[in-house]
């Protein structure tokens, strides 16, 4: 980066970007970044895999608790959140397309919509699910205090519900921080048709959040 040709000084930051010196080409750098990130995503899938496995074990051992638990969730909030995340995934992908084409303004608006969708997801989760449930004692494990439970293993259901959805919500928050960073840097002119690696990587992270929810939603809300 130290040897930027002087004739480039008037160009935006993205046009001045050159790949790191240990790569032969920008394409090689881009591919390496993506491969590295996909490898990280595999560890993320395995992280949630542990929770899915816990779900699988407890559902097999205590089907009554799982039936009762899923009936205590309202599919409408889960479905609404699924739609919100799918739309945000679309706007994220659209934002990458716009950066590739040089439509910076449109790309930024897509990122803003993605952020709004992320915030909407967290709001729905918190206001319509976590707070009303937690306040009447539908809590995980030893914190459980709901008087109308029929199955003695219901606290386990809430343990799996909260660990699955809360770790997912943490990913939504991290994803929003990354998107906000990309948005901030895009206003400084860091991303354009020849350099958008960070946008693409952030997008991959955001799509993973969507991917996990695609499985959490039917497992928690629909199957009983």
């Amino acid at each position, binding site marked *: 980066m130290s040897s930027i040709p002087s004739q480039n000084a008037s160009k935006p930051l993205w046009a001045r970007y050159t790949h790191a010196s240990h790569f032969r080409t920008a394409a090689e750098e881009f591919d390496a970044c993506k491969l590295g990130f996909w490898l990280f995503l595999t560890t993320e899938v*395995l992280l949630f895999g542990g929770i899915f496995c816990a779900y699988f074990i407890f559902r097999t051992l205590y089907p009554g608790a799982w039936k009762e638990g899923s009936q205590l969730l309202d599919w409408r909030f889960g479905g609404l959140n699924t739609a919100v995340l799918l739309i945000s995934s679309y706007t994220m992908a659209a934002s990458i397309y716009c950066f590739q084409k040089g439509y910076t303004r449109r790309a930024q608006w897509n990122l803003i919509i993605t952020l709004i969708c992320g915030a909407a997801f967290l709001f729905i989760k918190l206001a319509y699910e976590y707070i009303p449930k937690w306040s009447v004692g539908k809590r995980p494990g030893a914190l459980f205090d709901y008087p109308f439970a029929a199955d003695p293993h219901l606290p386990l259901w809430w343990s799996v519900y909260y660990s699955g959805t809360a770790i997912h919500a943490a990913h939504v928050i991290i994803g929003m921080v990354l998107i906000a960073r990309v948005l901030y840097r895009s206003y400084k002119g860091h991303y354009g048709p020849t350099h958008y690696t960070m946008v693409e990587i952030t997008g991959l992270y955001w799509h993973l959040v969507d991917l996990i929810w695609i499985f959490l939603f039917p497992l928690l809300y629909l199957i009983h």
Partner: protein
Amino acid sequence: MAHHAPAASDHFDETDPHGHSKHGQHESHVIVGPFILRTILVVLLLFTALTVGIAQLEIAIQNWFGIYLPWWVNVVGAMSIATIKSILVMAYFMQLKYDNPINTVAMLFCFFALGLFLLFTGLDLFTRDKIYDYKAGPVVAGGTGAGVVSAGGKPIVEASKDRFLVKLAEPDVREAMITVNALRHEVHELGKLGTDAARQAAAVISARADYLSDLKTIIVKQIEPGELARSAKHLRDRAAELRAGAASPAADLLEKAAQHVAGVNLAEAAASYSIDATFATLASFAHGDHGQHAHSGEAASTSDRSRPRAGLTDALEVFGPAAAKPQGGH
């Protein structure tokens, strides 16, 4: 440094991550256009609607025809749709379809590892009784939280119920529950009249009874003493509002109901107060049977575990005018 070649337009450009296609040297990066992205979004939303629809259809078949589909129908259906959706997201939104195949290989290997993880867990879970019958089911009967300090040696579900029964015996809560019975009785009586004004008044009284029957009201918002008088005042206030809106027949009925509620003999009602019947009524209310149960603490069936319908309205109430600050449970 060789990598600072000028970006000539018809020339190999090493600074461009997707610009080599002119010479066909590097096609791995393709721009996925808006048409494909939008189509995929629509398909994903349709699949979401489909998976919800299948789950609702299963419930409808149970409710209307009494046919219980085998458990795996729902599981296989929902998981297949989720798998298709995730493949679409990975292929198009995450661009695996257009990417260097090594990324797909990495992800497929990850799913293979996850599959092994679940497979060996399943091998254990489902074959425990193949040699010795007694190994079927959980090895140790546990998972009820009976060892937790707050549960006092009982399953934590029972301990929670016991704590709630103690709560129901408190004088203030007892008065509130007696108020609920009085209100339900008024609704029942108004139901016999069958007029529009009666229905209007009954709706107001029902809403108050529902509010007091809500678990959130009982355990989160602290119930204060004197609920009979407060509810009577509440009904009178609503009556005054109705009168201002020129609905005086309903207002008259409301005021009469308020008089009845205010006139309940608390000591007498407390003597015949049944904690168990109240618990059963509250439980059926919590499970979504609004207004189904009869008045005066008649125990409604708790066996009906149909889907709770109160979810949306309950949740909205958190931000409603009646909302109080959550006080961290009890």
